[in-house]
């Protein structure tokens, strides 16, 4: 069971992100980075498949700058066998990244190609489907459970208000949703072993994408809280506001 897992280095979900002065990028100073959370489910799934099969190779792949090396090492420490850094300056457009990944993946043999369902920084949700299109492979996205038998995969997808179960032949693409598994922490021994695992780096030139970024803007400032009163007598006014102004009731 060979898997390739595409991962992304993103700002930690706890980090407060500021928009840079040009209004077109995120200020990276003082920002803590981590592996995209959904990618951890994808990676954990690949490692478990390999452990269950008792054989196979887990390759992690990312497009990013030099600092993405740290995220690849983290993946190796969790249990991936080898890593590839496609070095390039990436932006908000998914297409150039998808093309670069597809080019790298095309000549590699694999059974499963895994992604997180989306990256939590730009929420593009484009790359898994684009890579599927470029490689001509079936793709199941937002997957919460996966069964594989004799070259066929059955994936349970989360859809609005319920679930959808799909079946496809391998090789195929799975984009992981939270709940697929519980990702492990790298162990101390895993971290030490990761230093000796292969991490290949190559410069790539990204193709032009189709999207142009015009502006980034933050969420609106939160209004000052209002105290409507105390105890039971405040409830009618609270209910009125929730119904008429906030419209949540």
């Amino acid at each position, binding site marked *: 069971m060979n898997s390739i897992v595409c991962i992304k280095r993103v700002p930690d979900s706890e980090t407060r992100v500021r928009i840079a002065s040009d209004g077109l990028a995120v200020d990276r100073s003082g920002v803590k980075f981590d592996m995209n959370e959904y990618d951890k489910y994808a990676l954990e799934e690949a490692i478990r498949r390999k452990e269950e099969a008792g054989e196979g190779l887990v390759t992690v792949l990312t497009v990013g700058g030099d600092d993405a090396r740290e995220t690849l090492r983290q993946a190796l420490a969790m249990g991936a066998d080898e890593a590839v850094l496609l070095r390039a300056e990436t932006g908000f457009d998914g297409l150039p990244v998808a093309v670069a990944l597809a080019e790298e993946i095309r000549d590699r043999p694999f059974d499963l190609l895994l992604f997180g369902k989306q990256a939590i920084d730009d929420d593009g949700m484009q790359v898994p489907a684009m890579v599927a299109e470029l490689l001509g492979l079936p793709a199941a996205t937002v997957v919460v459970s996966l069964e594989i038998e004799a070259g066929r995969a059955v994936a349970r997808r989360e859809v609005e208000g319920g679930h959808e179960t799909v079946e496809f032949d391998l090789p195929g693409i799975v984009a992981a949703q939270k709940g697929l598994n519980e990702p492990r922490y790298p*162990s*101390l021994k895993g971290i*030490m072993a990761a230093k000796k695992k292969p991490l290949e780096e190559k410069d790539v030139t990204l193709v032009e994408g189709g999207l142009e970024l015009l502006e980034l803007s933050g969420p609106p400032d939160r209004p000052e809280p209002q105290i409507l009163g105390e105890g039971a007598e405040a409830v009618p006014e609270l209910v009125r506001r929730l119904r008429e102004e906030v419209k949540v009731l």
Partner: protein
Amino acid sequence: MLDYFLTDEHQMIRELSRTIADEVLRPVAADYDRSGEFPWPVVEKMAEAGLFGVFIEERYGGLGDGDRTMNMVLVTEELSKACGGISLAFAGTALGTLPIIIAGSDEQKEKYLPSIAAGERLAAFALTEPQAGSDAAGIRTTAIRDGDHYVVNGIKQWITNGGDAEIYTVVVMTNPEKGPRGASTLVIEKDTPGFGFGKKEDKMGIRASSTRELVFEDCRVPVENLLGREGTGFITAMKTFDASRPGVGAQALGIAQGALDLAVDWAISRKQFGSPVSSFQGLRFLLADMAMQVEAARALIYATARHIDGNPKARSTIYSAMSKCFASDIAMRVTTDAVQVFGGSGYMKDYPIEKYMRDAKITQIYEGTNQIQREEISRILIGEHIAGQS
């Protein structure tokens, strides 16, 4: 952050411990504090990450070759920042394992250490009894030789990890007439017939840690479970405390640092008179004093841990006692001041800070009260001075 010139491996241990503390311990700390249950799901995560191996040699499955004290201190500090109770599942296991590391034979190490390093089995150290705490000569638990077994009878009290640990290193009297020279250390496994548990204590703090009585009634323990020779129980216990007290210091340090972090966060975000309370000098100076004390405790503990690791044959009693005593005293002060910074909110259980104050208190008491630590420090200080004059 002050540069303590940690090795790459130390930094890695610290980072992983911090991640687990923040992501696994912190979200559940208040729940376990309330329920007093043993935090098994958290311990499993700590075990998977390999944290229990940091104080055990590589050939027994660990990472602690040559720097086990420093490793143990770093993990304990980081975990204690998030929860001073849950961290004891780790630190109490280190304490319970130390007698095996210090006095065990190769066969005994081979038998017990790999499962401890893997986090499959927790350990506990049992010295205290209803009539004997710091007065270790008052031990009444007996282990009388009968063929190829010892028959153990007696009660051990207030044992950290009691009931949840599988491996107990127990100080017993193999020769009660000889007093302290008649003490020995036995490894007693949980499922041994005649070994049971008394009540689980309901404590002020460190409530996620289990504290129980161990009850031995004609408990037959094979003689091969004797650590070292008969009669070496006290020296093993004293060497164990030399190595473990910096760990209590690290627990206190973590609790203090965790409380300081929360206090600074609070001071920045809490507004009074139209300004953050961190703009008021009275509060700023309080924070400055807290930070100074915490950093001084860290410097002393790290230096002591390195001294122990670098001088494995020498006794470190005075520095170990200083580390434990100083750090636990500052932890009590810093956590009390942190509650003060929070004001009325600090006194409420809805906020996380009062727990730090409750958790800190035990560090001034266990593994020898701070009065006992001062006795030890002054005894060595004055003794060395007199020896120097003669």
